[in-house]
Structure formats: C-alpha cells, structure tokens
C-alpha cells in the first residue's frame, strides 16, 4: 500500500514533465515551420498550445509574428499585446508591434499624458505584475533584514546605519507596492480589445438601426467600457466613444 502511494506520487510529479516534453516538441515544430516560411502551419501549431491552456510571452510573440507574415494584422497585434501583458518591456515585441501598427489604417492619436503620468506609466511598465510581485517580496525581506540589523546591532553607529538602510527599503517597498497595483490594474482589470475585422462601424447606441458614428479598421485598439447583448461600448485612445458588435472585437 505504501509502495503504491509512493509510485502514484511519483507519477504526479512526472505528469507536468511529460506535458512539458510534448509542448516543447510542438514549439520546435512550429518554430521550424516558421523558419521554412510555412506560416499557416506554424500558426496552427502555436494555437494548439493555446488550446491546451498554456501560454508564455514568447508563444504570443511568435504567434504574432506568424500572423503578421500571413498579413493578418489584427491577429498579429492582438498576440503582441498579449505578449506585452506578460512581459511588458520586451524590446522585440514592442518593435514588432510598432511595425504592425504602422501598417494599420487608423491613426488614432492618443490624448497626451502629463510628463509625470508618462514617467509613472513607463516605470510600472518595466515589469509585469508577477515581476513586481516578486520584487515586492524581495524588498520586504531586505527591509526586515535591515530592521533586524537595527535591533541587534550593539554600537550606536551600526544602529544608525541599519536604520537608514531599513528606511530606504521601506520607501522602495511602498513604491513597488504601488507599481504592482498599477500594473495589475493596467493589465488585468482593464479590458482592451483589438479590431479583428477589416472594418467595423461604431454606432451611437447598441442596435443596427442607430446612426453610425465612426469607422475603425483592423488592428486598432479600443478600451471596452460597457456591454449590452451583442454589443460592446468602446472608447478609443483619442476619446471617441461608440458601440461596436462583439464579433468585430477580440479582448486582449
């Protein structure tokens, strides 16, 4: 009985490893297909991994590249955005997203941010939510260690230094806590979508009969602010608001 339990637990440990070997094989095949220029086959393989509910920034990045090569701009931009969500400051993804965006039809000029807003956005964008979370833990441990140094040091000079260091870590801890929350809100709380059809018409209210407000094209990004039946209320980066059919959009 004990033996059986041992083997079962061993199997449980092996299972993820087996799955990993399998997916690694698919990744290799997909990458080879991409290198050979068989982009549609590469897309099929990458998508099969996503169907297994597996993800990684690299997977989204490669899939975006394959879609771009197949000239499917909407899908390419969608996957680049998804990659950035997991790895916000990946240079290659940012570059390719810029190239793909340059090919879209719409030029939506975002409302400019005030300099400190831009700094703050760039700052918390340096790490993903999980990256910030780990940093938070590291900061906390460092702060506690320095605080411990303060308590246990015997001489006055040592105590002073330890206190100064621990105060620095307290500030760093608070800053990274704020950045974690901001990044979490930016990537997981807010709903952004990409237009997946060549052109979508935004209506003034959710219904076919309502008047057209504006037209957005494939690859454009919009924030979802409301939902009703078959329709999403969207807000563009330039501030325009309208209702678009759900089928035209794909949430990042």
């Amino acid at each position, binding site marked *: 009985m004990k033996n059986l339990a041992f083997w079962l637990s061993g199997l449980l440990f092996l299972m993820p490893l087996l799955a990993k070997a399998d997916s690694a094989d698919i990744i290799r095949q997909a990458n080879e297909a991409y290198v050979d220029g068989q*982009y549609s086959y590469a897309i099929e393989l990458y998508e099969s991994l996503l169907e297994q*509910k597996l993800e990684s920034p690299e997977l989204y990045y490669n899939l975006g590249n394959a879609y771009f090569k197949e000239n499917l701009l909407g899908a390419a931009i969608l996957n680049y955005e998804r990659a950035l969500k997991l790895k916000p400051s990946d240079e290659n993804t940012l570059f390719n997203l810029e190239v793909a965006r340059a090919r879209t039809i719409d030029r939506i000029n975002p409302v400019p941010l005030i300099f400190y807003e831009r700094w703050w956005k760039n700052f918390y964008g340096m790490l993903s939510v999980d990256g910030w979370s780990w940093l938070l833990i590291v900061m906390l441990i460092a702060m506690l260690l320095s605080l411990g140094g303060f308590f246990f040091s015997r001489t006055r000079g040592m105590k002073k230094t330890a206190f100064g260091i621990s105060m620095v870590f307290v500030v760093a801890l608070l800053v990274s806590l704020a950045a974690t929350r901001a990044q979490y809100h930016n990537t997981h709380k807010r709903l952004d979508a990409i237009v997946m059809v060549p052109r979508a018409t935004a209506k003034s209210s959710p219904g076919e009969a309502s008047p057209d407000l504006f037209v957005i094209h494939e690859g454009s990004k919009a924030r979802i602010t409301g939902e009703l039946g078959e329709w999403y209320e969207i807000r563009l980066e330039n501030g325009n608001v309208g209702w678009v059919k759900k089928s035209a959009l794909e949430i990042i």
Partner: protein
Amino acid sequence: MNRKALCVWLFSLLFVLPVSAIEVNFTASAPAQVAVGERFRVVYTANKRPASFNGPTFGEFRVLSGPSQSSSSSTQIINGKVTHSENYSFTYILEATREGTFTISEATILVDGKTISSNALTIRVSGQASQGASPSAPSPGQPQAPQVQGVGDRDIFLRAVVSNSNPYQGQAVTVTYKLYTRVQVSQYSIEKLPAYQGFWAEEVASGGQPQVTEEVIDGQRYNVATIRQVVIFPQRAGELTIEPLDVQTLVRVSAPRRSGSLIDEFFGGSLFGGFQNVERSLRSNQIQMNVRPLPAQNRPPSFKGMVGNFELNTSLNPLEVNVNEPVTLTLSINGSGNLRMLEKPEIQFPANLEAFDPNITDNIRVSAAGVSGSRQYEYLLIPRTGGTFEISPIQFSFFDPASGRYVTRSSPAYTLTVSGSSLAAGESSGLGRQEEVQYLTSDIRFINNTLFSLRPMGSLFYRSTLFYLLLASPVLLFAFFLVFWRRHIRLQSDTALLRNRKAQKMAQKRLKKAGIFLKNGNSSEFYDEIFRALWGYLSDKLSIPVSRLNKEQVSDVFQQKGVQPGLAAKFMEALNECEFARFAPGSPQTRMDETYQRALDTIVTLEKELKNKKF
C-alpha cells in the same frame, strides 16, 4: 403557222382549261422513319385550291410549326398539248418525342363542296439517335434558337470543348469552339463573347480562315470548323461556369418552292436563285468546371500563384566593375503557364547597390496548347561603394499541375567585386543610405527560436496564495525571532542574578562540607572543597564559567570592580594556600583550621564588598 391557226389555238386554250381540272388529288407525305428528337416535315398536297383545310391529329408528335401554306401553278405546252397544274401544300414541322410506331390521322379539305380525305401516315420512330450531337434537344432554360425552314438543328450546331474540366486554380485550359455543319455556311460572325467570369482569358490568334476538318457523328458526316480558341486560367477554386458563345451564321438553303415548275427542278434551282441565304443564330453549350484549389501544404514562401512549368535563368554581367559603373542583372523566366500574371520578383539588393526598376521584355505566345514563352527582367545596378556585394540566390516557385507539387527554382548567388574608392559624388549616397536603413527595418524581427517554457494560462502570482504566504512568512518569522531574542536575553540575565544571589549559599554549603572533612582529618578532600568553594563563588558572582577563570583574570576583575586591593590579595592567598596544600598532603590540623577560617572570612567580606558595589 398562219394568223387563223393562232386564233384557233388561243381559242381552244380557253376551253381546255376548265376541262383539264378533272380529279382532285389530296396526299400526305412524310419520312417513313425518323429518330427521337429529330425534326421532320409533313406535307399535305392538293392539286386544286381547297376552300378549307382541316389538319390531322398528330398524337405523339410535337408540332413545332405549321400549317404553313404555299401554292404554285404551272402551265406546260408540250408538242401542242397543253397541261395545267396547280399545287397547294400545307406543311407541318414535327418533332418525334418518343420511340415507337405512330400514325398520323388523315387530314381533310373541302373542294367544290366536297370533303376529300388524305391518306393516313405511319411513321416509325427509332431510338436515341443522337445524344451528344443533338444540341437541338432543347435544354430547359436555354432559349430555343429560332427555327429556320429547311435547316434542322442537327444540320448546324456549335460546340464548346474544354481540354480539362477539372483543372487546378491558375492552370491553363483551352476552350475550343467548333462549328459542325452539314449545310453550306457562307458567313459567320461572333455575336456575343462570354464574359469568362472568374477566369483570365487569352485568345488564340487564328490564322485568318478557320481550318475545316471532317468528323462523323452518329453516322452523319459533318464539316467541322474551329472558329475560336481561348486559353483560360481559372482565378479561383470551386464551381465555375463558362457562358455559351453566340454566333450568327448565314446558311445557304434551297429556297422553298413557290412553283412546281419543271424548269426549276430541271436546273436544280441554283442557277436562278433557287438557294437562298438564311440567317441562323447558334449558341454553344455552357461548360461547368470544377476548379481544384492549390494545396496549402508545402507551399514555399516564394510562391506567388504561378502555375505551369518554368525555368529560371539569371546572369550578372560584368562581375567586376569600378564604383559607379553599371551592372546588369538579367532574370528570365520561361516556360508555359500564366506568364502574364507573373509578379516582379522581390530581390533584396545589398545596401549601397542602387537598383533601378527593371526593364521588362515579354515574349509570350498563345497557342491551343496554352500560353508559353518568356518574361525577362533587366535590372540596372550601380554600386556606390567599393568592395564585394553578395546577391543572395533568387527564389522562384511555381506549382506544377502535371506532378501536383510545388517546384522552386533558385538562381546561384552572385558576388560582385567593385574596385575603387568609397562613395564618390555624394548626390545619391547620403540620403540613399538613410532610406535604405528605413526600408530594411520595415519588417518585423525574427521569432524567439528557443524552446521557451510555458505555464498554465491565467495563472497570476500576484494575489495568489503563494504570494500572500511569501509576503506573510518573513514578517511572522521576523516577529517570532524578535520575541524569541528578547526572551532569551531576559532569561540569561535572570540566571546570572540567581547565581549571584545564591553564590554565598553555595559557598557556605561547600565550606560546611569542608568542615566535615576537617573533623575527619581528611586533608586532601578538605583542600579540594575549599578550593572549589572559592572558585565557585567567584564564578557565580561574576557570571564567568569556572573553566574560563584564572588568577590573572581574577585580579583584573577585582580591580575593575573596585574591590579593595587587600581583599584581593587575601583571596589570592587563600587560593594559593589551598593549591599548595593540595599537592603537599599531611598538613597539621591547626593549619587546616586556619585555612578554613580564612576562606570563610574572605567570602564574607567579598560578599559585603560586592553587594555594596551593586553588581
């Protein structure tokens, strides 16, 4: 012949006329045997003008037209004998609908108040005579060509033939329009060209007069003229239809007889216009095509939709030049296929090798076998710097429908050696280079070609249990450690205090024991106990373990604590005495008493002294 005789002849003529009209003849004529679908004529002929005509019932035959009425009359004088004949005919055009032997009932006419019946007709209809060669069989939905008297639909028809009805997308297919005739066609003109929707069409140039061959269909000999040939390339996969072609023809037919004149019959009618040109509209059959899509598997990236069989020839001339001297890269694609749809090959020329738009030369022939020939691109290249330029192999792919797979032809890589200094006249150098950089960066970056690791979707470390655990555990650990440390310190100070307090009691206990040894006279045990009492007291009092105590330290500590130097000397003396006595046994009883008293005194005074000093 004299004048009188002529008068008599004319007079007699007047009398002869009514006399010759004696018996009324009314007959029906039709072919005895026809085929299903064939059109034929049934003619009712009477030799006297009827007052009315009452047609027959045709039963299984379909009446296409009729009755059409015609009449003729003639007067003949042969060797002085005058005959006069009149001819009235009623013509039906019928079509046999099914196999069997059928009877057409008699028709009747009313002449001079009498009803005269014709003969009944028996016609045998034989089986399917001509399925393929019967475009006359009217297919539903297709407008019926107007019927021309004397020219059946089987006498002249138009057929469209395709060389391949199941081609691949982009594969060349030849459509041939053939005119089948059994009659003379004096002229034809194409009225309406099909739109060829979904196709790219190239007409085969015909050499003036169409070539005429003979073909036998169902035992019937036809003259066949190929009037038009078109090479088409399907542009999409799926079911495609080629619309029919409309042709207007001028057919020579023998004119319907207006008179039963012997002269006409004698001369066969041709001499005096017995033939007439009849306009006849023809329409070819509609063609259905099932176009196969090109396979998506193994499609090379350089494939741009070319289907056929091609060769790629390239040359770079010269291979060694000076800076700013032109070089020609010639790229020629020849073979058969949709050459006109060939896209300009994308060649990545190295930076600083200025390339102009290519000069394109076509040599394309369209024949019944398809479209073949060559297209040549001539690139003029001008190197703007010295050094070597690598022109990577140019790839050209096409789909070969014969083998059903993709073929890629590749040119060799060329190395161009340019001698001379760097960028000379700066007119096209500086700016051109910057543009080149921009051009090169308009493509995306390469994929991450590593075996990266994957994780379950939507798994977020932030706000997960592990996250909170890792956040809380250092804090708890810290707090626990802090509490533990505090307690430890307090505990430690407590034991020291206790020992300090109990030091005298311990010493008294040991001295009491030493007192017993004293009474017994056991000197070595006695000194041992005294020694231990002294050291133990000091150790407890100063919180220093016995193992770490030595004489030098003791005097140091005493000095530090501000104990009277005399007392310290006394203590040391007692210790020394004990140590000395321990190794020299057999000391007298009085000395032992003295030592005992001294140790007791020292401890009592030390106790007092240290208490005052508030240890």
